[in-house]
């Protein structure tokens, strides 16, 4: 599909995705707000610039694969997919409802374009690593992007996968950690400290890139660098603000697994409309 290179356009797409997320979650009355909003810029950059894919041909064999390992932020993926033309925008309102293709946690068989099933944390990274290995075995020139939550790597399985990826020199594997410092019970460094996260990944023989995950320009540059790394898997530690764009959600772990009510949604959409105006005036 046609790639968007204008930073302003990508910011506007991210803002559209955020508005979709708020509307979907308010309609569903449950779901994960903070992580979804925090990752909107990442999803905008991936779906509209970085990924080689075709929303009208989801089984295209040469497509890049996007694996979402922390499935609970799927609203932001669904929103980005709808904005990119994978399915009609109005279907977003079916999230979490009976018979919907938009399951509460994503299921690969329900919705074309969803590459992997995810919910229990830590599995997606292994699936992504398996795909990257198969691509190497078959000499396919594709990239595998795996998005993970920071709380998710409390699990042991990802570290098994990281060791495996480094051992097999899977430089077609680009992992992105959504470093937002929140998980359900509070701050990640209080629940189970992860820092120094960059040093952990260096010790696991990954190429480490750190950037601001809410800055479109930094993301574009970071992914470009990641694609050029050879001989090692890459991790992008993307520092994000959970709940980004909605002042009363920003940085608050209580919004990890909560959806806005009607009034909160109206307020959030007002704020996002203000941001849209500002981006347009830039």
């Amino acid at each position, binding site marked *: 599909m046609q790639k968007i290179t204008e930073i302003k356009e990508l910011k506007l797409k991210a803002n559209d995705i955020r508005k979709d997320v708020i509307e979907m979650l308010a309609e569903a009355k449950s779901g994960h707000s903070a992580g979804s909003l925090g990752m909107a810029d990442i999803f905008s950059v991936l779906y509209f610039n970085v990924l080689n894919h075709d929303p009208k041909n989801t089984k295209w064999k040469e497509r890049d*694969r996007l694996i979402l390992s922390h499935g609970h932020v799927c609203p932001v993926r669904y929103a980005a997919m709808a904005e990119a033309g994978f399915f009609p925008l109005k279907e977003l309102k079916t999230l979490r409802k009976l018979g919907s293709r938009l399951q509460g946690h994503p*299921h*690969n*068989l329900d919705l074309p374009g969803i*590459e*992997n*099933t*995810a*919910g*229990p944390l*830590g*599995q*997606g*990274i*292994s*699936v*992504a*690593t*398996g*795909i*990257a*290995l*198969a*691509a190497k*075995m*078959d000499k*396919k020139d594709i990239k595998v992007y795996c998005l993970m939550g920071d709380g998710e790597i409390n699990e*042991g*399985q990802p570290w*098994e*996968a990281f*060791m*495996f990826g480094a051992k097999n020199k899977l430089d077609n594997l680009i992992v992105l950690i959504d470093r937002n410092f929140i998980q359900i019970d509070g701050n990640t460094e209080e629940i189970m400290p992860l820092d120094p996260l960059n040093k952990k990944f260096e010790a696991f023989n990954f190429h480490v890139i750190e950037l601001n995950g809410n800055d479109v320009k930094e993301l574009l540059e970071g992914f470009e660098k990641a694609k050029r790394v050879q001989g090692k898997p890459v991790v992008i530690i993307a520092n994000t603000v959970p709940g980004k764009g909605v002042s009363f959600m920003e940085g608050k772990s209580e919004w990890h697994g909560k959806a806005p009510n009607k009034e909160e949604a109206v307020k959030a959409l007002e704020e996002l409309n203000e941001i849209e105006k500002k981006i347009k005036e830039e």
Partner: protein
Amino acid sequence: MGKINPEMFLIENLKEAKGIPSRDGYGKALVELGKRNENVVALCCDLTDSTRVGWFKEKFPERFIEVGVAEQNMMSLAAGLSDMGKIPFVSSYAVFSPGRNWDQLRVSVCYSEANVKIQGAHAGISVGPDGATHQALEDIAITRCIPNLTVIVPVDAVEGEKATIQAGEIKGPMYLRFGREKVPTITTERTPFTIGKAEVFREGKDVCIIACGVMVYDALLAAEELEKEDIEVMVINNHTVKPLDKKTLIEAAKKTGAIVTAEEHQVFGGMGSAVAEVLSQNYPVPIKFVGIKDRFGESGQPEELLKKFGCTSKDIIKAVKDVLEMKK
């Protein structure tokens, strides 16, 4: 040989059965599948020799994937490989896989309908001296409850080979259970085997023993003994625990009116439970269960353990007599 079903082409004399571990059949079949299809890949968690995956590794080193001691990673990796068109076989001991990676089996493989084949090696009490931690006695229970998963317990190495070949040629997640010890090889190349089809190994009208794995042999021995007392015993090799061959099982219940199930597994949740679920809803008859009775194993020689834990032909004979009392 009594009333052995001639269409089953079993060996002539049961007492002269050659001892071969069923896992040898798996290893052989994996090599054959590797030759037939270049998409077949094998993953293993640091147990290459004892699972017999080493034979595949020798022939196809570029398609062998060493995962290290990381069963959870292995299961989800396999799902990723299958997304790309590979046919992954994942091998470890049953206590670890599916014992330790059940969540990955459930979500990455079964719910996602990934075309992954799981070998649970060294299952059952007969693992012996390693003790309870290494004796998988619950693997049938935890696999047969997962949607989309086929569960197979081959009777011997010859059947193990056929089962593995068929598993590789049918799409969908499958669990194959193997033991460690040499077991009597009672089937031959000509013995019919189709996943999902239970086979009547022996005809009889008084009672039916429905067994899987090595206990099929014990069931046949028990039937021979019981013949001396004029008890005519049917024996069914119920190798596919899921999906069950309901038709054959219900017919057996109708014909004999009494059932004994036999497996080297906990009686709670195992193959016998699966049989009871079908018969109780379709044609209820008295059933006795031979297997491990809700307890953990321990160290010992395989024969000592099978005896202590009630998994011998003698135990089957007692169960047959008990169930015949209930039938009266």
